[in-house]
């Protein structure tokens, strides 16, 4: 039976559990065992979803030390010989996965967004050139199959009430990576666009009146998001960027204002129910995804639509 190991990132445990969907695409219909590796305490979201969870218990492991965590994961792989190892592409996961792959002498595909299987042949899809192209990649060699997986792309819809076996594991040796965390400053969280039902999103076409989007977003009970162009010009923070170098979002309504819709942007739209695109160019790529295309200046349109909602006494939805 094939066995798949998923690294459970303490910071993004739910996203880590979603990697079970990637495991299903890799191993398909054949029987396989899923094993989660946790180096932290809170493993509740994994219980019931995995066949087995290995909880590593050594209080001296610093979860932010890539050298130490890689050492533990290497030890787990050497002891268990998993067929595949999946790591969420979180900031830590993206330091861990390449280190681990190098240690195992195996190939690694980064930031995977799709997995295709034909017979036994596995094709791993990932964006390249800042998301402007997609590359189909094949593994060569004896494995294990290793990938880091883009957050928010796969969604686990399987069972949550398995009888998960819990193994506690004490590693024989922990490497000290000579790193110390001196301070942590929480950033002021404005909102998480991944959780928004309605996103009013601005691109190059509303560069001059980006701040006006806020009013419309408020009227629709949603939030403002932005394209890479807006973020790179310093108008909006990176935390609200949609796309390959930003976040993958799944709102019910996505209003794309002055957004061209390059592949790198559209890569960030998954399971969006409705798209309304406002653009001077009705043939911009984003328009082919839209329910409604509004041809014209997005800045003017935003203002008019917000006025209309206000005039109609449009209620302000709860966030």
């Amino acid at each position, binding site marked *: 039976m094939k066995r798949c190991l998923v690294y459970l990132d303490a910071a993004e445990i739910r996203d880590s559990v979603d990697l079970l969907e990637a495991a299903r695409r890799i191993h398909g219909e054949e029987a396989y065992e899923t094993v989660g590796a946790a180096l932290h305490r809170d493993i509740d979201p994994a219980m019931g979803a995995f066949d087995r969870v290995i909880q590593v218990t050594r209080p001296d492991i610093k979860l932010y030390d890539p050298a130490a965590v890689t050492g533990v994961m290497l030890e787990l792989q050497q002891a268990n010989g998993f067929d595949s190892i999946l790591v969420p592409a979180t900031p830590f996961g993206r*330091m861990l996965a390449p280190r681990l792959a190098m240690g195992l002498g195996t190939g690694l595909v980064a930031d995977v967004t799709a997995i295709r299987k034909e017979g036994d042949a596995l094709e791993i899809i990932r964006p390249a*050139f800042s998301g402007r192209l997609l590359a189909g990649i094949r593994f060569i060699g004896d494995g294990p199959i290793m990938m880091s997986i883009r957050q928010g792309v796969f969604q686990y819809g399987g069972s949550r009430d398995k009888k998960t076996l819990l193994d506690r594991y004490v590693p024989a040796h922990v490497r000290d990576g000579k790193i110390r965390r001196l301070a942590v400053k929480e950033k002021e969280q404005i909102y998480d666009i991944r959780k928004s039902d309605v996103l009013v999103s601005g691109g190059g076409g509303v560069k001059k009146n980006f701040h006006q989007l806020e009013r419309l977003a408020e009227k*629709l009970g949603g939030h403002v998001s932005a394209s890479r162009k807006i973020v790179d010009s310093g108008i909006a923070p990176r935390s609200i960027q949609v796309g390959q170098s930003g976040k993958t979002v799944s709102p019910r309504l996505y209003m794309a204002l002055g957004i061209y819709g390059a592949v790198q942007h559209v890569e960030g739209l998954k399971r969006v129910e409705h798209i309304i695109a406002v653009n001077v160019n009705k043939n911009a790529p984003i328009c082919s995804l839209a329910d409604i295309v509004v041809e014209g200046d997005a800045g003017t349109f935003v203002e008019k639509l917000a006025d209309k909602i206000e005039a109609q006494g449009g209620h302000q939805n709860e966030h």
Partner: protein
Amino acid sequence: MNLICLVKFVPDVDNFTYDYENNVLIRDTSRLQLNPDDACAVAFALKIKAAEPDTFVEVVTMAPDKVAPHMEDLLRIGVDRGSLISDTLFAGSDTWVTASVLSRYLSDRDYDVILTGTHAIDGDTSHIPAQVGACLGLNQLSGIISIDPERFDENAAVCDVETESEVSTYEMGLPAILSVTRESRYRLPYPSRKDLERDVSERLRVISNRDLGFAPDQVGLAGSRTKVIKTYTKEFDTKDRIVVRADDAGVDFVYDFLKQKGFV
């Protein structure tokens, strides 16, 4: 201190051309640029050198020979040595092979720290810094937005790393690999007029596989653990769209749609 910067030259991702018939990328060599995150790494090294003139800065890249003029540009703004690892045998190397090649070169070098960028805008795998770290037995930290020049010496570096939710300050024992991001805002200086014409070629060294001694099947496509089997532009499911104009009628139409779907 000896600082080594590991850099990559990348095509301008906003202006590349794609050959749809043959499914290949047309790499216009004149449009190559230093990867933005990597430029910040070099800029930080030069900032340290400006304050401590006995600092030695070496820039290392693995690339085709044609990047030599770009490497010379870096030598003109204060980099002491440029090392261009170049061999046709290396063409098509995946990140596993690339990290192995870079590490074999670096294993003979004397350094206190290796500075790199976090992401490259073309491949965007962020593998190389971590993989070189694994090869050389060095720890590595990505996403650095600042390194405190006051707390940067042969023993340790103190740096800030920014993620989505927090900014953490770490002290990293050296030698290690520190990977900065564009958000660091370290900027390369401009060359002076007299430096623009200076011949710097003697400080640029080209290292080939004769120096590194890999077997041909260990590098390039042959040695790679992953292989790109195809590249394609994305095809999306298109919807039956309705096109309206951004006038009052268009606004009314959108409003009615939003109302019907329960958004207003």
